């Protein structure tokens, strides 16, 4: 059943209405069950013995774990705690909704939500180096252009870096989809072992979801990748600031920056990407909901099992971006690039790709 920590959150959220205005899913579907309070009410009824387990699992998977609720919560509650556990329970009780089941099965089998492994063609890199670049599953499978841009940037900056030849799934997406199963810890342990074997003192993640997972979740399970974990944006902003990376062909356009949830809220990082944009010569036009108030795009995990709802979430965010009048919507997360790009086309660009063009 639920952990004591999850029960504490459920008991608070079920009698609280204060953060529904920022829940992207509740706003998109209009369903009470899709609000943070709604989910807590349902979990509480399960705890009191109501026979509704099968009916609630769809609502538990219909959360993008964007933590906007938690960020607004003045008391510090985090619905993600009980939502992840509710997902684990769906597995245990064999009540995963049919639409989600194939993705869950895949994640259990392969450790990733994707069918393909994704091995972008990269130049030959050393076995060991000072910096390990972690591509992550979304980059490998869906956004190989971001990997190419990252490799190009690090090369231009003269960084001694490498990429794992057979990079295993990091485990972050699996943690989002099915919660803290032994299988999740096993996947994470495999990745951490492989990363540690590279012997790098610095680990740079292209996906903020991976950075968060390695920095905040893995340590709870005693897993340490062996180096200091950085987001790609923070690391590259450091290279630009130190002069190691130089902007040679500034882009003089206007851009708005979509803060990825994991980066802005979970890792509290909002400025390095903006610094990079400014370094590129871009004029920044902020969206009304920016930085830690950012609105989720839906995310790749949600998109993998609920593309319709994801579209309902992504499109209003693109509208936010378009209203700024900017030429480009820049983001710093491969998942956001994928989801927003699917609905927004060329209007959406990853910061690394723009930076690479300018350097």
């Amino acid at each position, binding site marked *: 059943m639920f952990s004591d920590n999850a029960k504490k959150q459920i008991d608070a959220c079920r009698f609280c209405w204060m953060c529904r*205005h920022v829940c992207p899913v509740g706003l998109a579907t209009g369903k009470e069950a899709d609000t943070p309070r709604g989910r807590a009410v349902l979990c509480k009824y399960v705890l009191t013995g109501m026979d509704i387990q099968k009916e609630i699992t769809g609502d538990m998977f219909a959360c993008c774990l964007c933590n906007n609720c938690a960020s607004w919560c003045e008391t510090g509650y985090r619905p993600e705690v009980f939502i992840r556990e509710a997902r684990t329970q769906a597995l245990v009780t064999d009540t995963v909704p049919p639409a989600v089941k194939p993705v869950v099965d895949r994640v259990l089998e392969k450790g990733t939500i994707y069918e393909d492994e994704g091995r972008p063609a990269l130049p030959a890199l050393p076995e060991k180096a000072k910096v390990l670049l972690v591509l992550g599953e979304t980059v490998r499978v869906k956004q190989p252009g971001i990997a190419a841009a990252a490799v190009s940037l690090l090369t231009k900056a003269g960084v001694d870096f490498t990429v794992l030849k057979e990079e295993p799934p990091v485990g972050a997406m699996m943690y989002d989809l099915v919660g803290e199963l032994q299988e999740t810890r096993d996947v994470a342990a495999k990745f951490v072992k492989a990363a540690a074997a590279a012997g790098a003192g610095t680990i740079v993640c292209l996906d903020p979801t991976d950075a968060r997972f390695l920095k905040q979740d893995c340590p709870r399970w005693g897993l340490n990748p062996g180096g200091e974990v950085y987001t790609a944006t923070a690391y590259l902003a450091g290279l630009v600031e130190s002069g190691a990376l130089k902007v040679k062909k500034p882009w003089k356009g206007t851009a708005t920056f979509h803060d990825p949830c994991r980066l802005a809220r979970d890792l509290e990082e909002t400025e390095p990407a903006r610094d990079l944009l400014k370094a590129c010569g871009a004029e920044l036009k902020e969206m009304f909901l920016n930085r830690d108030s950012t609105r989720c795009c839906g995310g790749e995990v949600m998109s993998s099992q609920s593309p319709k709802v994801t579209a309902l979430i992504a499109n209003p965010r693109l509208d936010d971006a378009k209203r700024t009048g900017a030429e480009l919507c820049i983001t710093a997360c491969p998942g956001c690039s994928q989801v927003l790009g699917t609905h927004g086309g060329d209007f959406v660009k990853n910061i690394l790709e723009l930076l690479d063009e300018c350097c």
Partner: protein
Amino acid sequence: MDQERSAFLTAMIESELEDAVGKENVSTTTADRLIYGYDCYWLSNHWSAHGKTPPMADFVVSPGSTEEVSKVLQIANYYRIPVTTVGGTSGTQGGALPVAGGISLNTKRMNHIVEFDEMSMTVTVETGMIFQQLEWYANERGYTLNHYPSAITTATVGGFLAHNGIGVVSTKYGKIIDQCLALEIVIPSGEVLQTAPVPKHSSGPDLKGMFIGSEGTLGVMTKATFQLFRIPEVRLFRGFLFKNLTEGIAAGRDMLQEFKPSIIRLYDEAETVSIIKNILGVAKPGVFMNIAVDGKQKMAEMEMERACEIAAEHGAEDLGAEYGKKWWDSRLTFFYPGKFFSYPQMYGTMDSVAVYSKIENIYWEMKHAIESTYKDVRFIAHFSHWYEWGCMIYDRFIMDRPPEDPIETLKLHNAIWNTGVRTALKNGGVVNDHHGVGLKLGKLMKEQYGPSMKVFEGLKKTLDPNGIMNPYKLGL
């Protein structure tokens, strides 16, 4: 046999509802029906916390447009099925509880802006939108609705209209009924009514006013037009400590005769203690008033100067601006779990409103009636939302340890409410100022209105002859 027949009819109705709004927008799952079984009404929380099954509708139906609402109401009216409209479920009076079963009509899919008319300074919106979303939409374009209730992040546009709600800057910018210019309503026949396009006219009585505050008992409000304001250049705050409520109330009244502060909050002695300790670091007797004036800097400064002079005329000590600024920034913090009174504490807000000659007496009479009748119940209050002629009293009773037995607690809760509201009524107050009546206070409506209740009953009979809309609410 009967059960089988009813199962057949239920399935037929379900398929009609699905035809009206789409299969994915009709739910009969226990989970979806449970979730609408309690709102922010303390007794409904209490009921659920004791593991009791809450009141449940048979269908949760979520229409996405006026047309779909119309179809749903026609079906319900034909089969005589109760319809309880539900928005954010944050009402405190049990108004959204589907106590008679039938349909919970969820409005939250109707959450679009219909028209933003900058020339006329108006916005038209579907009523299922969470009010904060509407406010942000306006803010992004340099405007505000100046409706800042504490439930702004939780409640829908329709919910506030249904209860005739009020926000913290109402003293200058009015209650929601003052801010709403026009309404669209669907009545049980399925007909769509439009009120006059503008609020001030002599084309008959105020049709809009008949629906605002009607708590879903006459129909479903589907669209509303509101006034927009430019975001004020400044908002200036000031705190004052008065010797007693009499002086504080008189000062507020005198300010209102000259200008309109956007905020006046006058706290009774019990509430003042902690505020003063917070500001001065030491205890000091008296009653605390926090005011704000806003608008163009020049004008706001003039108003603040007069506010300080009027407060001084009533013997107040000037406590500066800092508390007010902090209060404004953290005005919603109080309502988060652990910061607010929380279950199992028993509490209730019995807001009333009266003219200046009666309001202080109402406070003392209610405080005395409640504290002397009920052991271990305390009563605190502040006065906010001021008019030229009177003001609102926001009084709250709190019992830290209510009885264990749920039925005993239910009865005690109702008895305290009866005592409080009847005392207000006896002394020139009303059943409620802005939280509405709902299930909780319906029985007291006749005590306030007497034979005048016939007007509401007549309206109900005409518009909802089968009595399907929100049964047992508003005393109708």
